[in-house]
């Protein structure tokens, strides 16, 4: 009975060891920052007896490299570090998203890999990264072979925003574009950890040259339900002139509401109301960009 509180923790120092551990251990739990896992009620002593593979000792997972168009971020880079380092180059949308975890103490322990792979919940970072056309490197270990494939972050989630990674796969790197848009907004309403059932997280960006909307992207995240990208609504907004009239704002709000109800019927009335209000606030804030000659 004493052995039940113990759990094997494997700490690979390089990719080779990591692949070996994945190959030889059955159904291991990949552990990045561990903040979400450890915050669950009844975490310790655990009922879950699966071995753990801790990624913190692999140096390449903690690297940040800047390229021409992207910043490559290892999965073990913590949110605070990325915020500090990317202060001058990332867009306001991404900086606001990273800072939305309201305490730097938590951000120090929270990793980028963990933030996008949280089981069963979506928080603020995945939605924004998807809007920024982020790609991820996925390491897959199959028998004696391993492959590293690159794919858009969006594809690791299903239609409902639930994580859809295959077994023996893990995300090793994120490639984040740092191009900004003319209009960007991030807003998180509620307390995602304390009250996920009433929380809404909104990330929105678009270009506004000559007062016309183009490349409109929207992501509404409901922590327990998933992410809503409102593709049809974004398409409808393409080519619209800003500023919007009240009538137009209400029209688009109605479409948004219908879309949310159709996609996530379990979203609470409060979450719906908050989503609409945030969206309206965004539409009202859009002004034509002043072209400089």
């Amino acid at each position, binding site marked *: *009975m004493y052995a039940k*509180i113990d759990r094997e923790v494997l700490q690979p120092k390089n990719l080779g060891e990591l692949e070996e551990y994945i190959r030889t251990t059955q159904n291991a739990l990949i552990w990045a920052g561990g903040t979400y896992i450890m915050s669950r009620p009844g975490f310790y*002593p655990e009922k879950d007896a699966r071995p753990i593979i801790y990624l913190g000792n692999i140096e390449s997972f903690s690297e940040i490299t800047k390229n021409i168009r992207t910043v490559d971020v290892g999965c073990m880079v913590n949110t605070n570090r990325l915020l500090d380092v990317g202060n001058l180059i990332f867009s306001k949308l991404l900086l606001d998203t990273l800072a939305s975890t309201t305490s730097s103490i938590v951000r120090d322990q929270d990793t980028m890999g963990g933030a996008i792979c949280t089981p069963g919940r979506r928080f603020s970072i995945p939605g924004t990264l998807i809007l920024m056309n982020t790609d991820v490197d996925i390491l897959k270990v199959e028998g004696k072979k391993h492959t590293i494939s690159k794919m858009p972050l969006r594809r690791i989630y299903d239609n409902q925003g639930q994580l859809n990674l295959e077994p023996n796969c893990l995300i090793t790197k994120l490639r984040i574009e740092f191009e900004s848009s003319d209009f960007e907004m991030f807003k998180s*309403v509620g307390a995602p950890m304390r009250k996920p059932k009433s929380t809404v997280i909104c990330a929105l960006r678009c270009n506004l040259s000559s007062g016309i909307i183009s490349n409109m992207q929207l992501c509404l995240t409901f922590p327990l339900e998933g992410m809503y990208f409102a593709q049809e609504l974004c398409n409808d907004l393409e080519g619209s002139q800003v500023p919007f009239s009240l009538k137009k704002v*209400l029209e688009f709000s109605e479409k948004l509401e219908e879309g949310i109800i159709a996609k996530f019927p379990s979203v609470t*009335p*409060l979450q719906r*109301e908050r989503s609409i209000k945030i969206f309206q606030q965004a539409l009202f804030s859009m002004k034509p960009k002043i072209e400089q000659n």
Partner: protein
Amino acid sequence: MVPEIILPQLDDNFLVVTPQDIMGSNKINVLSDTRPLLASTKVNYIGEPILALFGPSLDRVKVLAREIMIKYHPLTTTQKPRILRFKKDLGNFEESIKEEGLIPFESTFKSKKLTSSRGKLIKVLVTVDGEFLNIECQTQWPQLIKNAVALSTGFNKRNIIIKKNHFYAPYDEYWIKPAHLACIAAVAAIKSGLPIEIICDSMTHKIETTVKKTTWYNAESQTVAEKVEVKVDQGAYPLFGEELCSQMLAGLVPEYPLKGFRCAIAIMPSHKAPANFFGDLGYSAAVAASEIHSSKLGIKLEQNPYSWRLGLDQNKSIRPQIIEWHNANNQRDRVQAMAQDCFYNRKNAACQIHINQKSKLSLISSYARGIGIASAPTICGFSSSNKDVKQQEFILSLPSKRKVICNSSFMPFDNSVEIWKDIISKKLKIKKEYISMEEDDTIIVDSGPSVLSAKNSKMPKIISAACDKIEKLMFEEDYPLTITASNADLHIQHLFSSNAWASIVVELQIDPVTLEPLIYHVWSYVIAGKIQDKPRFISRMKQVIITTLFEQGAKLAQNKFQIDIDVSYDEKEISDTVSSNLKGITIAAFSIALNQAMSCDITELPVNSDEIVAHIGEDIQ
């Protein structure tokens, strides 16, 4: 119904305590109320303890505890619950409602059950040392632990030594639970012969009250009679019923004049976790209900709540029959000063103009604002009619001319001891270094439970009365001298006595995006007695106001929130604490402001954003 408990295989390192293992009685007596230590065949609420498992370490115990299986089935028929009823009439209610042309006005307010989530752990350590049983814990009532442990284990009370640790209990977390845990740990310690430590969360619950007030007024808008019906839910094990009724009565009696007043309180047990004192025993909920009703009544009589209060003839109020209030004259001045400083009339008028506005919570015309006002005197300690609890006994001994020993189970850990020493030093002209507290646990007197701010407010007055008594003896008798003083020595004629009073104005707005009530500004004008540490008193007031607002579902407007506190001190006697009335009036002012902002009647608090959304009748045009 619990027919069967299946335990896993346990070795000698583990110990289980079930109701059958308790050598004495499987119950804990809290004055005249009783509750079981461990549920045997019937579980009355979810979370009621059934057994205790002890092991070499906490994590091993947690793992093994998962393997314990308890077979149970719900009881279909239960006994009719025993309802405690209380009724009090002031004036002549029956005659007064017979008056012709009276118009009734009714309002209801429900104070929902609150759970404190401060998350502290209560730790009790018990060791058997020969004939003695040593118990180390934080406790607000050491005598309860001694009585309970003696009853459950058969140990001699004199051989039970309590070592009290420091505690901070704004919600009276350390009142009953330490005694409960100490009994179980004592049984385990005696059974095993080993030191036993038992840990439990300190979660406490506030009572749930529903207050329905009906006031009859005449054609001249004068209030004539009032009837109050209260339902109280204290959970599975109600306690202190009569005292609760006295405390609630004090809060329910209104400020406006009445010829007749009737109050009927029903305490109904339920299958919820038992409620605790939670800082006060229903007074704040009663004050909140009264003040909300008073404001609504003022609005019904076509006045704003402030003008209505100002116009009341306090000489005809029936409240002094229950609360002896020492400083009535300054009240009106304080309310006027506060209303002027916060521009109450102007803001109230502005909020009223928008009250019928549609699309209140739209982003275009977001004027969901409200302002609320409330005031009440304070009470602390137990009522003068309470015969159950030891009325804060305090023994003062002078073994010699220059030495003083104080004996009370209310031993203060904080700077209150300095206040006590200060009083004794000044009264008896003895230096502070010669004043000490009794340390022998076997002879420490039971001063009752340290709840309802009894320690902070009443105790200094009782000590003062003790000093007066012993001063007379100093000239008449030889040393050593010993006297006992208690609440009875304060000669309170009424149910409660008060020398502190508070008023408050709360200004808020419903955020149109987050749909949360955001508090922008709070003003609180207070009349208090003599306060030793004035900055700490004001800091404590702020804490109470802010914590109460958060508990009721409010948020503070970021970077814009302001709180202004103004205290007028009367240096005649030591001040009563203002915590319980401050809580009540804060709830009332918040509720009134919220109703104005939402232009609807939200009758239950705390409120959350889901409920605000449900109340929105959007029709954006």
